[in-house]
Each structure stands twice: as structure tokens, then as C-alpha cells.
């Protein structure tokens, strides 16, 4: 015989296989989700969704008999009262028989539909949209740990004692060692007391003394046994095993900047809102905690709550740099970049004072972009331009930002004209580098 210690060998031999399995399940789901996206409103990201996937991908079909046909017999243990020839009603829910055949016709037969929860749906939706630098940030961030269940162990703190498992083992041990129960001892005691008081005599006609002697001995043995075999022995104890698992710091802040000057009409604000919503949902997938700061601006900027941000009315000119400054102020005050992943989303119609554009670009390159993980600028096209085929004159802001974006991958910019543009834009903005469509 030889003993080989394999513990030093690499574990996770199956990680490759596992990844293959996930890939397989995912590629079909992703396909199905894509189909599904076409038919749903972008606001409706919260309801769960029925998704039909072609079932071949993760199925392992075999030739097997249909339980709803023919005659079969089986041998079962533990008969109590049945006699040969008795009949037993079929458990309900099984009686259908041949039900699967009915659904067999037509196109749908080889796919199966199931419902994805909202979380699963969004996971897939956002799957390949991981933000740039996020990984890097994660690696940089200090890891915290979270405890997770992992089977049972024989030692541990009292708070993790698993009562059910422990008592089950205690029961087995007591049964194996023949430890008399309380009831058995009490029974003996009662009989002894009644014999001694003369209330009863031994049924088999023996002398009372003999029986008393015998009982005392039995009782004594039983008590000794109970004393030597404890009810709960340390070897019975089982504890829930809980292992720490490292988790990256998971908090982010998202700044939503929007121009609310008169040139932005309700429609345009609506579009901006959907964009912000989607971004928020996405961040919420990746971080445990996402804080959102809303900053609106005309020629002045201020931090407001969500409702005011989207619904409040304000008139005035447009000075974009005020919003950027306000954002920097809030960040400096409350969200130090070494504790938060900072994301900035700016929505505007592109109008700005010409001389302010320069200030904006300077703020961006010198302060905001170095600090933020990512900044997205979306320009909402006014209604009148949406159906025009003529190339649009570039806005002031766009012209200012474009060179910055070219030099700096941390800034992305896109134009949105109507609701159905939002999602593709969003996908573009946050597409994982190198991921193929």
C-alpha cells in the first residue's frame, strides 16, 4: 500500500468545466434577453420577465420511459396494512398522463420558457457592460470579508451550535449505548415505591423482598448508566461552519448633472431621466451601496432632491461650469475618491455660453476626470431635430468636449434623440472593452 498526499495539488480542477457550463447557459439566455428587450419599455426594468431559451444548450436528454404510459411495478419497504389486491389512489397531480404530448406540436416544442427574476434579468442585461477601470478600482480598494455558510464542523463557538444535528447525534449515541430514558427510570421507581408500601405484590408469586432487591439493583444500574452516559456528550456537538469570504468595498456615488434651463423641454428631461435611471440600476447591480447626488443648473447650480431635479421648473441662462464646480464641491465635502467609486453623468442640450466651454473643459481634464471612474455625457437632441435628416450643427459643449473625450477614455459622449436610442447608447457607453457584440 502507498499513501499519496494530493492536497498540495491544485484544486478547482473543475473550474474550467464550471465556466464552460455558465458560458453555455449564459449565451442562450443573453440571446433570449436581447430578443426580449426589443419588446419592452425601457422604464420597465423592475418586473420579472418570461424568457424563452432554446433548451438544447444545457439539457442532457436521454431515451427514457414516459411514466404516463404502460404498466410497471416496484418493490417498496415498510408495508403496514396492505394486503395483496388492495388498491391505492394515485397521488393527485400525477394523473394527467400524456400531458406533455399536447404541447409537443408546433414550433415551441423544443424550447422551454421560464421566468427570470428581476435580478437575474438585470444581471444578464448588464452583464457585458462592466464599467472601465472598475476592476482596477476593486483591486485597489481594501477588501472586507463577509461570512458565509459552509457545511458543519465539530468545533466552534456556542452561538453557532446546530441543535438539530447535535441532538440527532446524541440520540443515536444514547440509543447505541442503551441509556435508559427518564420515563423508564420513573417507571422502576414507581413500582419500587408501590412494592415497598405494600400496595402491590409481584405478579409471578415471588417473595416481595426478592423483587424489591431485584428492582433496586436494576434501578441502581440504570442510574449508574445514566450518570456514565451523558445526555449530551462533547462528541455529539455539531456547529454550523461559517467561512469568511473576501469582498471588495462596494460603494459608489453617482452624480447626475442636468441642464434645466428653458431650452430643455419636458420631453428632453424625460429622456435624460431614463438615462439616469438606467445608469443607477446598473450601478446598483455592482455596488452594495450607491448614493446619488442630483445637481441641476441654469446659470447657477444647486444640489436638489430627485423630485425637484426632474420636475422642478426654473428659468435662466446656461452656464455649465457652475454644475461641475458644484459637483466638485460636494465630492470634496462628502465623497472622498479613495472611499467611493465616483461616476458622473451629465445630460444637456449642448447649449452653453461660448466662453464657459473653455472653463468646463479645464475643469474636466484637470479635476473631474482624474478623480472619477467614468463620466458620461449625453446630449439630448431637441424635438425639432429628431426627424431632420440634415446633419446637425455641433453644439458648443459638444465641440468643447470632443477633444477631451478623444484624449481621455474616461469620458464618453453620445447623442440621444428618442426613447429607443437610450438603451443602445447606454450599451455603447459602458461596453466592456474588447467585448464583441
Amino acid at each position: 500500500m502507498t499513501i499519496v498526499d494530493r492536497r498540495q495539488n491544485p484544486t478547482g480542477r473543475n473550474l474550467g468545466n464550471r465556466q464552460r457550463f455558465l458560458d453555455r447557459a449564459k449565451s442562450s439566455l443573453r440571446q433570449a434577453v436581447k430578443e426580449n428587450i426589443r419588446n419592452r419599455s425601457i422604464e420597465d426594468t423592475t418586473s420579472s420577465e418570461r424568457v424563452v431559451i432554446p433548451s438544447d444548450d444545457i439539457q442532457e436528454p436521454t431515451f427514457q420511459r414516459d411514466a404516463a404510459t404502460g404498466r410497471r411495478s416496484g418493490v417498496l419497504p415498510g408495508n403496514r396494512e396492505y394486503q395483496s389486491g388492495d388498491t391505492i389512489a394515485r397521488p393527485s397531480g400525477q394523473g394527467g398522463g400524456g400531458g406533455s404530448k399536447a404541447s409537443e406540436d408546433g414550433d415551441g416544442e423544443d424550447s422551454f420558457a421560464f421566468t427570470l427574476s428581476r435580478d437575474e434579468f438585470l444581471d444578464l442585461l448588464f452583464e457585458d457592460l462592466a464599467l472601465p477601470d472598475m476592476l482596477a478600482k476593486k483591486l485597489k480598494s481594501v477588501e472586507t470579508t463577509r461570512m458565509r455558510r459552509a457545511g458543519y464542523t465539530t468545533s466552534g463557538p456556542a452561538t453557532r451550535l446546530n441543535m438539530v444535528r447535535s441532538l440527532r447525534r446524541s440520540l443515536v449515541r444514547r440509543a447505541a449505548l442503551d441509556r435508559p430514558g427518564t420515563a423508564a427510570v420513573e417507571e422502576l421507581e414507581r413500582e419500587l415505591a408501590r412494592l415497598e408500601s405494600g400496595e402491590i405484590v409481584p405478579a409471578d408469586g415471588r417473595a416481595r423482598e426478592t423483587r424489591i432487591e431485584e428492582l433496586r439493583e436494576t434501578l441502581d444500574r440504570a442510574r449508574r448508566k445514566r450518570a456514565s452516559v451523558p445526555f449530551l456528550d462533547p462528541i455529539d456537538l455539531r456547529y454550523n461552519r461559517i467561512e469568511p469570504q473576501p469582498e471588495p468595498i462596494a460603494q459608489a456615488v453617482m452624480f447626475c448633472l442636468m441642464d434645466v434651463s428653458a431650452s430643455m423641454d419636458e420631453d428632453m428631461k424625460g429622456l435624460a431621466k431614463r438615462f439616469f435611471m438606467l445608469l443607477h440600476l446598473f450601478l446598483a447591480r455592482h455596488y452594495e451601496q450607491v448614493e446619488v447626488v442630483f445637481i441641476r443648473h441654469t446659470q447657477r447650480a444647486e444640489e436638489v432632491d430627485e423630485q425637484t431635479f426632474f420636475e422642478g421648473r426654473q428659468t435662466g441662462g446656461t452656464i455649465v461650469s457652475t454644475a461641475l464646480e458644484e459637483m466638485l464641491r460636494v465630492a470634496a465635502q462628502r465623497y472622498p475618491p479613495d472611499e467611493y467609486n465616483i461616476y458622473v453623468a451629465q445630460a444637456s442640450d449642448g447649449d452653453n455660453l461660448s466662453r464657459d466651454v473653455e472653463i468646463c473643459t479645464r475643469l474636466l481634464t484637470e479635476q473631474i476626470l482624474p478623480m472619477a471612474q467614468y463620466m458620461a455625457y449625453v446630449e439630448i437632441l431637441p424635438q425639432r431635430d429628431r426627424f431632420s435628416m440634415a446633419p446637425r450643427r455641433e453644439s458648443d459643449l459638444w465641440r468643447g468636449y470632443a477633444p477631451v473625450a478623444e484624449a481621455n477614455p474616461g469620458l464618453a459622449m453620445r447623442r440621444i434623440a428618442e426613447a429607443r436610442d437610450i438603451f443602445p447608447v447606454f450599451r455603447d457607453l459602458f461596453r466592456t472593452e474588447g467585448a464583441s457584440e
Partner: protein
Amino acid sequence: MSADDTVTPLFQGPSWNFNTLSRTHDAIEAIARDELGMDPYPTRLEVVSSEQMLDAYASTGMPLNYPHWSFGKRFAQQEMLYRKGFQQLALEIVINSDPSLCYIMEDNTMAAQATVIAHAAIGHNHFFRHNEVFRAWTEADTVLDELRHARSFVMECEKRHGRAAVEEVLDAAHTLFAHGVDRNRNAKHQDPAETRARLAERRRAARDEADELWLRTVPQQPEDSASNAEADERRAMGLPEENILMFLEHHAPLLAEWQRELLRIVRWFSTYFEPQRQTKLMNEGCATWTHFEIMTRLRDKGLIEDGAYLEFLDLHSMVVAQPTFDHQGYSGLNPYALGFAMMRDIVRICTEPTEEDTAWFPDIAGNGEPVATLRRAWAEFRDESFVRQFLSPKLIRDWRLFQLVDDRAAPEYVVGAIHDEAGYRDVRRALADQYDPAVLSPRIEVTGADLRGDRRLHLCHWVEDGQQLDPLEARRVLRHLGRLWGYDVSLVERDATTDAELFTFRSDEF
């Protein structure tokens, strides 16, 4: 019986090291060889972590295996069950190779390790070496080589032809896993290289012949010889053929050589597992009886302490738990429990027979050689014949076994035989039938391949007791099968007794 004071236990306390392992193994093997007359393969104990055990588990218990997503699927399931605490890991995995590999987990206590060694390294191992079915179907000394070849070949193919192409073949082959065994033939292994060469030669000859014919004769055949040619073809292809995987490997017209080799690899795995399918009950019964006997003898010799023995009993009782049919934890007959009970029962019949036993088992009742009788049974039987031969009325009574008949044409289940004088034989027959390998998977044959016509592959499912195929699954399998065959496939369901056609699947219709 009581321990000699000078004997020191093999180990103390729960922790183990390589010394205690090796000392305990030697003591256990000595009992097995000297007292029980057992003769296992030499053993290699491999200590693994729980993570590695999970790994091995998911690769169908093989020490190495080719990469495939389905193992990942199994791994994900197992891991989830384990992490949530629903299920404990198997204590051991043993491979019937020579020398046999026995995996033991580092987290186990020494008492558990001793149990595992007695169970797997001795019990299973002896069974592997001596049981007829294993001897007929597997060659222990080539197992590890085959596994290595399978792995490197699949990986090489993936490199050369891409993962998707390899997976397409493997997926399809996996669906036919249960139909890759020669149940009717003598299953002795053929040398793969030889088979390969022979086939290549045959194909070349056929091609030359065809060329010759084409050049020299006008392709005009009399009408009646067409059917002759067809019959010849059927004979040449060995039809009807139950081993679908082998048929495809040899005769599928469009497969490349590497694809045929992949099919052969899957077929090898299928054949490797066939004895395990046929002897699950006996194999576990043998191993469980062996560990119980050996651990008890160790205790009696004072070689293990009471505490360790107690832990062993706890483990043992968990292994042989058998909930009754109306219990919510019931999930069929536990092969460990029933196997163990039958082994014990045989010992009882050999040593303390009742009148009933003498009537039922005249050749072994009271022969006074319980262990030799067991060894003979382990060598010569498989589950089905073992139950047919050795299930005693007493065991049927003790287990209160009864037969339940489910006829879909009837509105209710009907209780068949029960544990009474009139029922013993019927219960025994019904239980033995349940272990019949022919009953375990549907009987499906390749009946024809219209090579001169549209090249449609014809399969037939011989329907027993009206049990037809699950149509959805059947269609899925047929689609995979069609990919391997390259042309359309049909499957006819025929009643095995009346020959009546019940249903037809055609791959071009779905």
C-alpha cells in the same frame, strides 16, 4: 472477546497522520486477508481536500477526465448542496484500477478514515477484483491509461477543431451514454488501435471495390438483387445493433476519424460504468458488510477504542438508513442498506438456519462457512441474479417488502405480492426484475440504414409493458443522433410482444 491489556489501540482521538493511516491500513488488510480470505488489488490511498473531493465527484468519480460543460453543471449542483449543508460529501471514492486508487478526505476523523479504508480499499476493491461482471467488462490495468488518453485526445481535438465542434460530438454521444454497451456479446475489450486499423482497412477495401465496379461494369442491376444487396449490407453492419454508439462510430457516413474516436471514448466510459450499474447493490452490500465486520473485529481485539467504535457506529447507521415508503425521506431502496442486510442474512442462513431457510436454501443453509459463501456470491452474481438467488422470506418479512403495480390504464395503484407465504416468490421476482439491466434503460436498436436510398437511419424501440418513450426527451436525443448520423433519423416504437407499431418519431418532422 475482551481486550488484552497489552494491546495498544492503533490510534487515539480524532486526528490522524500518515503513520496512523498506514498502521491502520495494515491491520485492516491483515484481518481481511487472514481472517476473511479476501484478496483486493494493492491500494494507493490518496489524501485529498474537500474541495478536491467535490471536483472528483463532479467528474463522475474519475481521477482525471476530459473537459466538458456537463461536469461543470454537476459540480455547480454538488457544490450548492454541500455549501448549504443539505448534503455531506461522500466519504470516499474508489477507482477499480490496478493498483486501485482510494480517495480519502483530509477533514475526516481517524475513525472515519479507518471505516473508509475497510469499506473501499478492502470491500469494493475485493469486489472489483473478483466479481465476474467486472472481470468481463473492464481491464483494471488499462483504466488509468484510457483516462489519460481520453483527456489528452479531447483537449488536442479542441485545439485543432475548436471547442464547439468537439462539444457537438460529445453532447450527442452523452445522450446515448446508456446505449454504448454490448450487452449481448462477450464484452472483452478490443485493442482500440487494432480496431482502428481494421476499420480503416475495411473502408479502403470497400472504396477500391466500388471504383472497380464503376469502371468495369455498366451500373445496371437486376431488380431482385437489390434486396439481396440490402440484406448483405445489413449483415455487414451487424444489424440489428443495440450498441448505438458503436454503430455510429463504425458506420456513420460523414464523421471524421477524430469524431469516431470521440465516440469510442464515450463508449469506453459507458462500458467502464456498466459493471457498476449491474452490481450497485452487491458492491455496496459487500463493502458495507466488510467495513462492519472489520471494524467490529478491530474493536474486539482492542485495536480501536470504544469512542472510535461509537463514531463508526454512528457513521454506519447513517449509511444503512432505510426510510419506509411512506416516510417523507424515502427515495427508493438504499443499496447500502439492502445489500448489507442481505449479506448479514446470508451469514445467518449459513450459521443459524431455520427450517424455512433449509427449505429455501438447501445448498447453503447451515454449511458453517458464511464468509466463503459470501465470497462465492460476490464473485459469481450480479444484482439481479443475486436477489433472485438469495433474498430470503425472513428478510422480506423484516423489511415488510411489498409489490406495487402501477398500470396507467387502471384508475388506481394495485398492491401485488406482500410478505406472506403466497407472496415471497413474487416479491423476490419483482425485486430481481427491478435490477435487471435490460429493464434499467429502454431497449433501442438500430434496425436499418438506407445507404442506397435517402440514408435515413432507422431505430426501433421495443416497448415492454406498454412503457413508451418520453416524447420530448426522445426528440431531443434524436436530434443529437441526427447530427452524428448526418441524415434523417426515424424511431419506431413497437410492442415487444405483439409487434404492433405504436408511434413513430421522424427527425425531419421536428
